[in-house]
């Protein structure tokens, strides 16, 4: 049975507007980005060539891969242009005081 659990991954104050914050839950690499006041979490590894998206470029609700310029919609994980060919996994986010928690199902 898959099990969902919440994990603290960052402090709210660690997340700077316009920048992606990398975080980990076990081996899982996650990127956190605030867009219009809402924090979003998505898988940090670009499905194309395994670059870390958190080292890429945030522009509004889009993030661009630092290496080959694939773009994704931050709030939905939707792939917007090649060379990536699939959407990113996104994770539910909850803010509890200064803690940012993400929900992982495994």
């Amino acid at each position: 049975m898959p099990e969902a659990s919440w994990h603290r991954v960052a402090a709210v104050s660690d997340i700077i507007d316009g920048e992606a914050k990398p975080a980990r839950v076990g081996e899982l690499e996650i990127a956190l980005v605030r867009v219009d006041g809402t924090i979003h979490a998505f898988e940090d590894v670009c499905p194309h060539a395994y670059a870390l998206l958190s080292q890429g470029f945030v522009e509004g609700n889009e993030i661009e891969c630092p290496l080959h310029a694939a773009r994704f919609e931050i709030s939905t994980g939707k792939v917007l242009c090649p060379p990536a060919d699939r959407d990113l996994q996104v994770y539910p986010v909850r803010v509890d005081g200064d803690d940012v928690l993400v929900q992982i199902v495994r």
Partner: protein
Amino acid sequence: MFLRNYWYVAASVDEVKAKPFGRIILGEPVVFFRAADGMAVALEDRCPHRRLPLSMGKLVGDDVLQCHYHGLRFDRTGACVRVPGQDMIPPAARVKAYPVIERYKWLWIWMGDPALADPSQICDFHWIDDPNWGAKGDYLHVLANWQLVVDNLLDLTHLAFVHETTIGNAALVEHAAVKVQRGPEHVLVTRWIIDQPAPPTFVKVGKFTGNVDRWQIIDYRPPAFLRLDVGATPTGTGAPEGKRVGGISMRNLNAITPETETTSHYFWAQAHDFDVKNAELTDRIFQQIKLAFLEDVDVFTAQQRLIDLNPAAPTIDINADSGGIQARRIVDRLYAEEQAALTAQRTAAE
């Protein structure tokens, strides 16, 4: 691929003398000399008569260059002013003249449309002749494409490997995050190392007694200007916020000029803001960096040999390549823009 509408460093000012010398810039032969009034002159280094380099000739009078082959003479505007043995000068007898400016101990040349040559666009390298800095520069001829040099200078992670025994510091690679920022015509690669012991060379010149905040900031401007800002201040004194007190800083200054698609002119200098009048120290720092640069040159040269052998061999990119990749994307875009403007000009002319 060359960007033409930019100022490039063509020579060190000391190289430009009354005796002409030739250098290929962006695939074009250029002859440089200094006229009697002290002005530097750059002309196409190819006699339009039988294509001998004019740099094999000599200066006659104040500013007239005479071809070594048949004695045709050209003034500093590139106009032919004498053809031995005949009175008439053919109307097409002229060579191209390039705008040049001496600044920061370098001779800058404009290889593009002369109407666009605006000296205010010259990249700032004031540290080279600023009295508040000690500086020393050099020239290296590199058997590699200019963009390989740019890639190298935008990449901090090779330090621990290529420069293991010179300026490398393996500990930095693993523990400090590199941040890449970009704009339409710049890339900034920044690494901060906060509250760590200063490396021995820094302790020696900076007299640090405790931990320091250390920075490495690489500023790239197209086509190929890289200004590296490195330094340290006592930890907690505000350097990350922009307030630098009680520390030391150095600039590693690089201007790469394409010679051909596979060879480059590499002008560089090292500047420091401590003990600035100490020429012996300036030289010692310069020599240390030069050792490291020669290690890089070995790398570019070997890369170019394999690129020539099989340009289509596949490569991969790793996270550390982001700065270099952003720079290449800027160059690609600017090149496309220049080509589109040229096409538009040609269409308008027809």
